[in-house]
């Protein structure tokens, strides 16, 4: 696969390390009476759709940036590649 890095242009996917569902960005914060269930859901209930999926890729053999790649899991078409910060901003704006 080729991933269009927002700063570095087209890069081969072998330069990246895959992590998974971009929902991992939204880790709950522990407070005084945190329910373990929130952490359970965060850790174990990941989205795994057949189709459009926002996922985390780390450009390990490159600039070390964590990116959010929007990929169609049925045909590997890459619809969007963003820096994590930009993704979080637009996610929160929604």
């Amino acid at each position: 696969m080729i991933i269009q890095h927002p700063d570095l242009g087209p890069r081969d996917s072998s330069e990246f390390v895959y992590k998974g569902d971009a929902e991992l960005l939204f880790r709950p914060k522990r407070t005084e009476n945190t329910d373990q269930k929130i952490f359970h859901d965060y850790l174990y209930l990941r989205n795994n759709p057949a189709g459009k999926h926002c996922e985390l890729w780390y450009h390990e053999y490159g600039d070390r940036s964590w990116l959010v790649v929007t990929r169609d899991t049925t045909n590997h078409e890459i619809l969007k590649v963003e820096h994590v910060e930009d993704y979080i901003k637009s996610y929160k704006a929604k």
Partner: protein
Amino acid sequence: MYRTKTGGLINRKKVLNFSFNGKNLKGLEGDTLSSALLGNGIHLVGRSFKYHRPRGIFTSGSEEPSALVQLDEKKFTEPNIRATTVKLFDGLVANSQNHFGSLSWDFMRINDYLSNFLSAGFYYKTFMWPKAFWEKVYEPIIRNAAGLGKLSKEPDPSIYDKGFLHCDLLVIGAGPSGLYSALIAARTGAKVIIVDEDFTLGGSLNGEKLEINGGLCTDWLGTILSELTSFKNVRLMPKTTLYGSFDHGIYGALEIRNYNSRDNLKKPRHILWKIYSKFSVLCTGALERSILFENNDLPGIMLSKSMRHYCNRWGVIPGQHISIYTNNDDGWETAKDLKEAGCNVICIIDQRPDINPPIKNIDYVLGRKIAKAYGNLRISSIKLDNGKIIKTDCLAVSGGFNPNLHLTCHQRGRPKWDELNHCFIPNNPPKNMSVIGAANGIFNYQDIFKDSKIKLTKILQNLGHKKVSIEEVKISNRVYKVSPFPKNIPEGKVWVDLQNDVTVKDIKLAVHEGFHSVELLKRYTTLGMATDQGKNSNVLGLSILSVIKNKPMDEVGTTIFRPPFTPVPIGAFAGRSRGKHFKPFRLTPSHNWAKSNNAVFVEAGNWLRAQWFPLKGEKTWRESVDREVIQTRTNVGICDVTTLGKIDIKGKDAGAFLNFVYANNFGKLPIGKVRYGLMLRDDGIAFDDGTTARFSENHFVMTTTTANAVTVFRHLEFCKQCLNPDWDVHLISTTDHWAQFAVAGPKSRKLLQEICDPKIDISNDKFPFMACGEINVLKGIPARLFRISFSGELAYEIAIPRRYADFFIKEISEIGKKYNLVPYGTEALGVMRIEKGHAAGNELNGQTTANNLGLGKMVSKLNDCIGNTMSEREELNKENTLKLVGFIPTNKNQSLVAGSHFIEKGQTENLENDQGWMSSVAFSPMLKHSIGLGYIIRGNQRYGEKVHAVNPLRKEIIEVEIHSPHFYDPEGELLRG
């Protein structure tokens, strides 16, 4: 008389010597191995996979199912090589495969007479009972009989390489449509790559007698190739098979540099290319299919177009009494060309009753089928369905054409059935791929050129290239009309898949037994498996399935084609990554010094580390390791620990960041101090441990374990960029920039005082346990000093810029002589950490928690850190949870074994009674007996209790006493001294 007098793309003046089954033969330059064999009148070249039936050369291309040979001998040998794809070279040695006895008298032919018992799925039915027979009786027999060729079992002497190419347009196949498309693209200035599996570019033009623009098609081919060669933006790649189509315009290709594996041993024999393209055109043509009748697998039976090409391209006369069996117009082209070349064509049988024969000067039978072929090692006659017998020694068969569309399916494209030409055609090829010509189901040459021009103009325009002029091509017209598949199923031994010996009967049986879907049918009968992947057989098999199930072909569907298109040698995938280059290795900064000190090295991840340093006279590794431990513990030792991951952490929020990533508190770590840190995963399982030193308010230096250096850094970047993007934290890996040495033992301080800048006070008061500081050593080398101890001794770790490391280790060893300084390796390091009860990789195995490790109290209860919430899960904190403790054998002469499981004395050794396992063991030279660390239920409350350490692999049970994990200096007085 097996060759014509003239014609063809062979050099009749250049004779090449080769041998087949020990017999010396002669071929010509330009031959393939198969054309050279046929040129010697040899049709019988192998035995079939299951029934050991005699098989001949069936095709002239890479789809060949039968003519698989063992090429070359000894370490150069290669099995299952398709004779149709090897360019003949002088001295070639080939042997037939898969027979016990000679090729013409194969003992295993008996399988053919037993075929009633060896039908589809016989493995699953026959070898079921008795159970114990499987390993001892059935498997050895099957293994002996299975497979075709043999491996040399020696290292491959050839070199393989890998390469990367980029282009605007990738043209796959250099036949008429491919070359024409390439020419159009080349003239626009686009960067073009043309690949073709053949060693001569031209595709079908090499084997056809067509007229182009009023001249020979080979003349036109010559003009096109010379123009293409003149372009700097074009790369022509013959001998290159495109084996796979991958995502985003990436393709895999195998280029054969040497057909002879003994040529140029110092240069790569094959190159595996990864080609990045903006767009690709698939111009792979079509593959002929056979017709089903009894004994349709006899040597001497060959596909019609292949036979025509053998005659036209290689001047081969395939038989003395040739007959042709067809259901389409292409069979007549073969008749015409063979006759023109002077072959004796005795008859053409066309299944179609109502056609107007295109040539008249030939005996023909219309509207008939062949019922059966006869012959022993070669066809001798055929019987028609009206009972008529025709004597023939060679039969060309044409059952129509299948577009060669495999590469359109590698990304799940599914072809659709074309009712006009009775074949599957591409339906949804990958994005940025266009299919042109016969590969797209267009069988008329004139239309193929038109198709190329229209599509290329559009593709190039979309890629942003200018329009260029291209001359029209006038080519002789050929009609292609094919009859549909018959609605009845032929009886007798009728071969669908020649390579896997799948018959019509097998397919019937499979469906009868419930394997209706094509995918199940494939697995149950092996139809379409192995080196040819059913290029001839698949559609024939589907036609039978369609009749049995009474469903149209479209509904029957096809199996999914996957890469590789044709076999790719494992050596090509490995490339240069073999032997010591299997993976990259990293050398520690003291490697050369260690080597000159006789070190034995061990692989630790990618690192090569000194394992121990044997002295003259030491006979076993234990002698060396024991000496290194004792000398370190009585005097002083030095060990290269550069391999630990080192991460520089800076920024206003660095303290908060460490608090977040470590389970224990770091925010209040004073400047000039080091602290042990335990990292958890967010699910509460222990991830890694190490130390972190604070050099200033906003500057920390972290160490990780060697094994997790990369993953911890990745995790920290995740914690920073993804979980705390607003924090001011900067990370950089400095593992390779700082050389680090552990200096341990009672005399370590005295030794370091000698090399430190005299202005720096490292006395116990000024530089106590867990102190750190930036100093300089050996007259000005900047260094970082940490008073930390993995060995349990008074110990330091000193880091210096890597470039000084070789000088440093030489200097300190010289100065250290008066303190009896000893270099120690990873074994002594391991022994000392086990003596101290420190956890390492064996204990942090991805299943254990801080609680298991006995570090539960360290985990922060207050702030939010990675893993603390989930580490509080009830299940992980049960009363009878595992605890890391030490073990001593009751009989001190016994050696403990890592991996042993603990069972209560008197209980049966089974999983139910399992109480934990031994994770690390060592012989303690200080205690003079074996010691171990391990996890056992409630271990910390059971000191003194005796249990069994059971090792079922060696059927060994050792009684052990549960002990504190701290065997040596349990109070830790030494390291604080």
